Every structure is written in C-alpha cells, then in structure tokens.
C-alpha cells in the first residue's frame, strides 16, 4: 500500500475544511446547476408585518430569498427606509424586491397583497387571506391582471392532494357526477379557539405606545380608541381586524378540505348558524355553522365551546359507491389531477400556485359566510357567482364594508 493512500482523520478534516472554504469563496447563487441556485433564482424579499408569524411566513416561501426589508407600523422611530420601514408603500417602491411575505393582521392582507402585485411583486400572504368577502375577489383580480404569483399561507392542501383517497374523492367531485345528490358531510369539531380568540367588550381607551402608528395600524378599518388587546395577536378577537378563531383557524382546516371536495371555484349556497347574538365589535361565542353547497355537499364548523354540539347530520365521506357502476369505471379511468405547484416553484416557473388567490378566496369565504350568519343571526342564501347574498341587503353590507380613506379595493 502506498503512503499517499493513507490519510489520517485529522488530515481528512483539514482537507475537507480547505475544500469547503475554497468552495464558499464563490457565492452559492453564482454556481447554478443541480442543488445550487443560479442567479435567476435568487430573490430579493421583504417581510411586511413583523409580529409572531412574521419570520415563519417569510421562511414558508421556500425560496433563496434575501430579506432586504422589514416593515411594521410598530417601527415608529426605528425606520431608516433602507432596511426598516413603517410604511409598506415605501417597501414596494424598491425594484430589488421580487417577493413579499405578508404577516400583518388580516385587515391589511388584501390591500398589501394587491399593492404588491401592482408593483410587480409575487406574494405569500399569511392566512386568513382576507377580512371580508369582496377583498378576496379583488386580490384574485389583481393576481390575474398583473400575472403575479399569489399563495395563501396555509399548505395542508399540498399533502391532501398527494393522498390517494383524497385524490379519488377529488376526482368524484370534480367529475360533476354527483350534481344534486351529494351526500358528503364534513364536520370540523373543536380546535377553532373560539373563546381564546374572542374580543374584550369592556376595553377602555389607553395611551398609544410611542413606537406604534395606531392610525396606520387601523388603516382601512374604523379608527377606534387604542387598547393593547386590539393589537399584537389578540387582534383576532375583533371584527375590525379578523373574525375570531373561526377565521383564523378555519382556513387552515377547510382550505385542504375544499381542494379534496373540488370546491375551489365555488361557494356554499345556504348558511345557517347556531349562536347567541353577536357583539358589535368583539368576536364571541357561537355553537355551530352549517354551510351547504348547491350539490348538497355540507361543511360544518362545530365549535364545541358554546351550546349544544352539532347533531343535525353525521360526518360522511363521499364514496365511489355513491356512483353507478358505469360511473365508477369512468372515475377509475380519469387521470389524476395535476400536482399542485408550490409558491417557490410558481415564482420560478410562473405557473399558478396551488393555493392561488381564487382558491384562497373561496376557502376564506367559508369563514366569512359563517361569521356573517353568526352576526346577522339568520339563515342566509348565497350566490357563489355574484358573491352576494340573495335577498338580504343587510347581510350584503358585510360582504364589502366601506374602508377608511385613502384605502380602498
């Protein structure tokens, strides 16, 4: 055996470190090739909304993105308008920013998403996508108009779309063979954090912290007296900013389910809630909400936190045996749906993301419909094409509530 073939562990490590060092002298993004990011795949990123979900949302983009700017209305006195910003509009003026992660409270989601796409950026927006129904349609229109990538920050549909049983259900539903007699009932019981994310009804005004631009925080929503419970996570408990645990957790749960049951392009037609009268400003307790699609498919939110648990229907999957033998054969011959495209892949290839604005609008709409049924206290009928309630002027006032200037859709 030759001497040169003998390499001690110490020598090996030394050599390895040398090689690694030499390798890293050249920036990774310049190299390209498999497992390396070519220059065209490096991105300038910005994070707008730097609360608890901020970094998680930014990292969820799954891209080689350099965080060039962070922005939050709580940065009063800290903003340098180079890396730290208070006003998202200044961030969007930067030409070196390609992708924007939005993790503000939801009353800002749609407006910032739209403004970002108008400025040519791609957007990953934290869930829930919107605060009210019309915002979702406006985001979808902007996505289409500017041909930008939009992905909502909930990803359960990607896993479900790879599950063989879910693919089968998706194919049955997408086939349209169960047009008017779908027996499916999906019930989400518990886990909706209803009490945890309720609002205070006796909050008294308090001094605004010097680091916070409260007027900007309220933005399109009514300007209320400051109280810390309205800001910093507990904002979830107020209609002005979100819609309680139902809105916050609902899209996590029902966005994947919506894909499984092939409802990305429609919404329920009947909505009924069991709840006490809602408070004007604070989200509160409710029992259950039943949402029925035109084909009979029913989604249920069962809070298990107020009143009697839901007992109108039993959960029931859609089955292949719901179809005639001939139709079953047709379903088996149907090709599987195209794999959903991740945000990172969409940004690179310009294909549409799996959790795009149209789909996300529909899943966010489920929560908004449920909350409007809770707030109005009556059974509602909804037109999924017009995205308006039928024969209910007052309920429609909650579909597209006017914003405070200068903010508008």
């Amino acid at each position, binding site marked *: 055996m030759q001497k040169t073939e003998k390499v001690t562990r110490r020598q090996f490590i030394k050599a390895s470190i040398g090689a690694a060092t030499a390798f890293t002298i050249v920036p990774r993004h310049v190299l390209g090739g498999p497992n390396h990011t070519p220059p065209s795949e490096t991105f300038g990123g910005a994070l707008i909304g730097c609360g608890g979900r901020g970094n998680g949302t930014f990292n969820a983009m799954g891209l080689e993105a350099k965080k060039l700017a962070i922005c939050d209305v709580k940065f009063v006195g800290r903003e340098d308008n180079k890396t730290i910003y208070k006003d998202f509009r200044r961030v969007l003026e930067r030409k070196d920013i390609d992708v924007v992660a939005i993790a503000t409270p939801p009353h800002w989601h749609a407006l910032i998403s739209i403004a970002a796409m108008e400025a*040519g950026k791609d957007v990953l927006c934290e869930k829930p996508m919107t605060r009210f129904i019309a915002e979702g349609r406006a985001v979808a229109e902007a996505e289409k108009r500017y041909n930008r990538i939009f992905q909502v920050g909930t990803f359960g549909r990607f896993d479900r779309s790879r599950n063989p049983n879910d693919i089968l259900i998706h194919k049955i539903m997408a086939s349209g063979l169960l047009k008017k007699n779908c027996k499916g009932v999906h019930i989400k019981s518990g886990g909706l954090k209803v009490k945890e994310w309720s609002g205070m009804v006796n909050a008294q005004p308090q001094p605004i912290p010097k680091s916070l631009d409260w007027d900007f925080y309220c933005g399109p929503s009514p300007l209320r007296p400051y109280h810390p419970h309205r800001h910093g996570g507990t904002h979830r408990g107020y209609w002005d900013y979100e819609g309680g645990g139902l809105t916050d957790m609902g899209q996590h749960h029902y966005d994947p389910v919506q894909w499984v049951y092939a409802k990305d392009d429609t919404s329920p037609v009947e909505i009924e809630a069991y709840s006490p*009268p809602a408070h004007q400003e604070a989200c509160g307790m409710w029992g259950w909400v039943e949402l029925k699609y035109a084909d009979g498919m029913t989604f249920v939110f069962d809070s298990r936190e107020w009143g009697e648990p839901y007992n109108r229907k039993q959960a029931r999957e859609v089955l292949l045996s719901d179809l005639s033998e001939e139709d079953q054969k047709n379903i088996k011959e149907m090709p599987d749906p195209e794999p959903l495209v991740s945000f990172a892949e969409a940004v690179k290839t310009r294909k549409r993301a799996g959790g795009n604005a149209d789909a996300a609008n529909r899943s966010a709409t489920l929560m908004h419909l449920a909350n409007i049924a809770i707030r109005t206290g*009556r059974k509602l009928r909804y037109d999924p094409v017009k995205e308006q309630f039928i024969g209910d002027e007052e309920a429609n*006032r909650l579909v597209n*509530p006017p914003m405070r200037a200068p903010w508008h859709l």
Partner: protein
Amino acid sequence: MAKQSSALAELINRLPDPDERGLLSNIDKETVDSAVSQINEGGRKSLRALIGMLVEPGRGDDVKPRYALHCLAVQMCNSDEEKSRRVFTRTLAMQLGGDKPKAVQKYLIRQLQVAGGKEVVPALGKMLEDEELYEPAAQAIVAIGDGAAEQLRNALPKVKGKMKLTIIQNLGVVRDAKSVDALKKALGNDDREIRLAAGWALANIGDAGSVDLLLKAADAEGIYERATATKACLLLAERLLEAGKKEPTVKIYTHLRDTRSGPDEAYISDAAEKGLASANKR
C-alpha cells in the same frame, strides 16, 4: 317615566356580564333574545332611554346598553316589520348633530350602518361635514347606498383635507357620474392622496372623457404615484370595455403597452397587451 326606566334597567341587567378577561363567554341566547325583544316592545321611549345610557369610552360602564342597542339593530333587520325598523333608525338618526358626545353619536351611526335605510341618509349626510363623524357617516351612507351619491356630492365643496379625500373616494365607490367634473378638478389638487383618489374614482365610474387625464397622471415619475395611477388606467380600461367602449379602451392599453418598456414595468406592458387582445376580440 321612572317606572319605565326601572323596567329597562332590569331588562338590561339580564344581559350577560363580561367575564374576568372582558369576554362575553357566559352568554345565553334565549335570555338575550327575550330581553332585547322586550326592550323593543317599549317603543321609542324605551329606545331613547337606552340611548341615554350610552357614554363616551372611558367615562363609565355602558357595556350592556351598547350590546342591547346592537342586538336591536340586528333584530330590526330580521323582522318583517318595516315600520319597526324605521322607527328604530329614525329615533337613532334624531340624536345626530345634538349635544350627545361624539363618541356616542359615532356608535349610533354604526348601528345605522347595520339597520338603516334611505330614510336616514339625509341625516347621515349632514354628518359628512362634522370633523369627528365624517368617516363613520360616509361608511354608513355608502353601505346603505340609496341616496348616498347626492349626499356625498353636496358635501364635497364644503370640506377640506382628509374629509375631502373621504368624500372623493366614496364618490368613486358609489360610481357617481354626476361628479365627474368635480373629480377631474381634483386631479390637479396639491395633495397626492386626493389626486390618486380622484383618479381611481374617475376610473371606477368608467368615464371615457378621463382617459387622457388618467394616462397623463400614470406617466408620473414617482414610483408609488405611477403604479397607483397605472392601476386606475387599467381599471378604467376594464370599465370601458364592460360598457362596450372599445376605442378608448384600446387607447389606454396601447399607451401602457408602449410606454412600459423597461424590465421593471414589463408586467404592466404584458397586462396591457393581454387587455388589448381581449378588447380586440370584441
């Protein structure tokens, strides 16, 4: 009177107390529904007394009266009795402009946004000139819709600054074609936000006579103003196409396609190209 006040107080007391965290977590639907219905049965006097219990935030505890009033507003919408709803909304509207604290009046306006109809729009319109009430008043008027444009139009020459901005934006929301001249004038305002709001309003109205003005605004050098005014142009093109006005639509798309030639604005050029193709199919 004292007897009635005492009865009202008793009904109000039946409503749930906030828990230790300030939440209405212990709430019984039947109790609330029954108490609110009985308050309603008391008619105008009962309603006025309830309104009298409201105080400015920080000046006392009015959690239950506020909740009761909102429940009543929602109940009015659930009722088939249009007359009851009007009694409710008119009683609230009569309190506007009086000596009640502005924060209380604001709350009443929010309830009118829930249950009000055209019968209260003139009263709300007067509040458009009030520095503390113009925002909720504008939102309530626009939510109600019927008669909103006239009130906004009347208020426009009488207000300045943020109030003017609010009126201009909402004239766009209600798509008031009779305001086109005033909005065109506002395009020359010194305030950038007013210029942008006027541009968006003209676009949303779909005014074919504004094409050149909006295209000029969209060629601004400031990045934000340029992007926002460009959005207005694309919106105007869509509105014009919806109305079957192909020629001005093509003009907008052609201009944007040809002037957004740099790599930073290629997506605008692409959007215009796509719009142009769509217009040419018509």
